[in-house]
């Protein structure tokens, strides 16, 4: 039996409970196992970002618990939560992922530096990861000189660098052309297959959804469907 990575129990999120309440997420139960490659889909405003932020410990649910590797992160203090994110969760954001004044290599290295990884360890891993995302020749280039797709690849490399339990990506392809989007997905799928990295990403893109091993559809903050496919990735 596969190892459970995330256990979401009866999670709800209500914005502005005192004025005009917005029920962004309603009584969601979810369960993710190691190695899953999951797409979170749904119309705009259905609660995808909210749910991902709750799973990532960036936003607190109004109700329910989020258990990651046995730790209920909804009970962690603010500082403990920051430390938890650093060591257990990888993030790829839709845009503005990288520190503009650091090179690609330094952006990836930075997260390991925060974790306290030794210099030798960092350098080795940066080289490995930049090769894995196909950007060995762009190590010393700043984000502004990279294409949107390349920037997202660096962001994936950085997310992997911290050796997280799983990687959350909120619309990682939203700002990419379809070719770059496909490339990024190929790369994520490969990392999922080869390294068993768990990915949860939200998307609107039908071609991206095709690649997912599991598709969770949110409608108005509730799970409308949750389907698994036999073959994962391409």
């Amino acid at each position: 039996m596969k190892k459970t990575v995330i256990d979401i129990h009866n999670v709800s999120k209500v914005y502005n409970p005192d004025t005009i309440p917005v029920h962004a997420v309603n009584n969601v139960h979810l369960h993710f196992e190691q190695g899953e490659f999951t797409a979170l889909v749904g119309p705009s405003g259905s609660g995808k970002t909210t749910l991902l932020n709750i799973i990532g410990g960036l936003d607190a649910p109004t109700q329910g618990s989020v258990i990651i590797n046995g730790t209920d992160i909804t009970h962690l203090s603010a500082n403990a939560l920051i430390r938890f994110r650093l060591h257990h969760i990888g993030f790829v954001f839709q845009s503005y992922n990288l520190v503009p004044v650091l090179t690609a290599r330094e952006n990836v290295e930075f997260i390991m530096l925060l974790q306290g990884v030794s210099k030798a360890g960092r350098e080795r891993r940066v080289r490995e990861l930049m090769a894995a995302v196909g950007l060995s020749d762009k190590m010393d280039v700043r984000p502004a000189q990279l294409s949107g797709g390349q920037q997202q690849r660096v962001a994936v490399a950085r997310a992997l660098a911290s050796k997280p339990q799983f990687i959350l990506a909120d619309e990682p392809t939203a700002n990419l052309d379809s070719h770059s989007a496909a490339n990024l997905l190929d790369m994520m799928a490969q990392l999922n297959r080869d390294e068993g990295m768990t990915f949860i990403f939200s998307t609107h893109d039908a071609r991206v959804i095709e690649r997912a091993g599991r598709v969770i559809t949110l409608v108005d903050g509730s799970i409308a469907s949750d389907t698994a496919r036999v073959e994962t990735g391409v």
Partner: protein
Amino acid sequence: MLTLLAWRNLWRNRSRSFITMASVWCAVVLAVALSSLQKGVFDHLIANVVSFYSGYVQVHHAGYQSEQTLENSFPLTDSVRQAVLSAPGVVHATPRLEAFALVSTGEKTRGCMVAGIEPDGEDRVTHLKSKLVAGAFLHERSTGVLLAEGLAKRLRVGPGDTVVLLGQGYYGSTAAGKYAVEGLLRFGSPALNDQVVFLALATAQHWLDAPDLVTTLVVSPRKPAETESVAAGLRRTLPADFETLSWQEMMPDIREHIQTDTASSAIIKAVLYLLIAFGIFATLLMMLAERQREFGMLVALGMKKIQLARVVLFETIFITITGCLVGIAVSIPLVWWLKEHPIRFSGETAEVYERFGFEAVFPAALSPSIFVNQAVAVFIVGVLLSFYPVIKVLSINPVEAMRS
């Protein structure tokens, strides 16, 4: 790498970093120049006025200041002299026996102020020798007199001529004596230039029939700035039948003039600091707005807020320190130039100074403490302001910051 990150950020928006730095150094330069000029003006003013005659501090028999007569003189014993010289901060003390008298050549007679002095001691305290324009200076056993130039002109006498001094001696006796004019002195102050006469102390005591008596001990502090503390020290150590006055007390009009000027320049400096503070603050706000998403992203990834705050603090403090250092570096030659090319007042101000008896020309003061004080003041403003971004960073909500 945190330092590296801060360092790179400084170069990220060069013009903004530069503008912030420039506003800091402008503030330092202006504040330093303003303070140096002002201190220069005051030092010059005080040194002039004080070295005319009064000295920084005077010790009298109690009551002399309000009634300047021989009856309020005191015997200059070694113990009094010792007590004054050993008071904290005192470097010199020279006695005078002062009296009003008539000076006459036979044809012409003028009122004058006679001072019996110890010539060398007097020179140390008021640089009297430097005012000599003709003839020879006095020595301890001189039996002649030194006349102020203006007075000599009115009497139509010069070195080698003889004058008669008529005055009232101790306990009302008549004091009269015939003295050779040994030299002429030129004073900037018209009041002095038209009426002072100097004799050796012993000669004056003999003339006034007041053996061993003096009216005044003129005291030099180690530094002009220590005037008040030296006066206070003397008041504490000397017996109650003495009075001690600082130049501020002897010349209250000059003290008031300085106080008014200091107050108005303090306001100018406050406005200057305020302007600079707003300037720096505006660039900090711009920086915060521009990097909001980046900060949010870094905290979302797991960077501790305190680490991020350190980066931001490093950046602003670096800018402030560099600005202050550049400001000092620029102000040193500037102030030096202002010292070499003194400011010359004209119009009403000049008249006021000329009435005090000296040219309204003021070199800036080149004083290290001014550089340090102004730079520290600007630095403190910078550091206080840089706590704003720090507080903002510490209270950042990554989700909101990234959405903005």
